[in-house]
């Protein structure tokens, strides 16, 4: 599988992301934001975490106009698989490939810690190796990760099984670190080829570093 990881000025998780997919035996190419095309044969595009363009104006507001994003949007609209992690999730909502919007964390702090997540839907590529209700321990690191969507949009998300993950404590009870609507940590689009989440599965791939729960998440994309 060929994984293209997009790199914007201010992106800082591209090497971790590359490392994670290489550890899973995949070929990974870093693609600079000025490129207008994705590499031939790209199977998955990952928009990694960081602070693209300094997150000026709003998180990821400027990244969505990068040349590479045109190619990513075309790729997604043709059914190509796209995963946005953290700043990448923010890019996907800014580019309207995913519904909703991202706000400043409710407590106005940057939060960087391990957090438990509960799998809400696994009838999709990304979380197919996880069970519904399963708890995963994955780091979060963001200042603007409070997911917002209006009531009608929220209903639609649930109806189509687009709510993928929620924040919980280690017992699986809802625990909301950032004020996200319904404690939502990750969603996908209706066609289930575009995935976004604030937590960092690429930082949870080795037990020695605290958790390898991210492995079975990323493995969902492997053929």
């Amino acid at each position: 599988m060929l994984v293209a990881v997009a790199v914007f000025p201010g992106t800082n998780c591209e090497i971790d992301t590359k490392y994670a997919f290489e550890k899973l035996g995949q070929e990974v190419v870093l693609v600079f934001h000025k490129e207008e095309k994705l590499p031939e044969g790209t199977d998955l595009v990952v928009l990694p975490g960081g602070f693209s363009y300094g997150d000026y104006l709003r998180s990821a507001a400027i990244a969505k106009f990068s040349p590479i994003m045109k190619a990513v949007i075309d790729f997604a609209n043709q059914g190509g698989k796209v995963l946005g992690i953290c700043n990448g999730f923010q890019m996907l909502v800014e580019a309207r490939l995913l519904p909703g919007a991202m706000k400043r964390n409710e407590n106005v702090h940057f939060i960087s810690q391990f957090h438990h997540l509960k799998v809400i839907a696994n009838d999709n590529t990304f979380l197919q190796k996880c069970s519904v209700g399963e708890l995963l321990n994955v780091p979060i690191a963001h200042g603007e990760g409070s997911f917002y969507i209006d009531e009608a949009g929220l209903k639609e998300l649930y109806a189509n099984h687009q709510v993928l993950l929620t924040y919980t404590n280690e017992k699986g009870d809802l625990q909301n670190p950032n004020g996200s609507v319904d404690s939502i940590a990750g969603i996908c689009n209706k066609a289930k080829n575009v995935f976004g989440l604030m937590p960092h599965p690429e930082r949870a791939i080795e037990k020695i570093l605290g958790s390898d729960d991210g492995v079975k998440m990323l493995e969902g994309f492997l053929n």
Partner: protein
Amino acid sequence: MKVIVNIQLKNGVLDPQGKAVHHALASLKFNEVGDVRIGKQIILDIAETDKKNAQERVQVMCEELLANTVIEDYTIEFPAC
């Protein structure tokens, strides 16, 4: 021509920054403050002399980039020069 764009979170969308500032003001005994909302102001200098054209162009700028209309409202003002 100078154009001022004011952007704020929509009514009903919780503003955590405003809330934090509200608490800080209350701790300074400014008890008369009922609510605080924080917005952004963007000041544009554009090469245009016709106000109507400017209004139309800036509106497109707001829709495409300056505001995220899922959660934000904006107003466009022309300051008296």
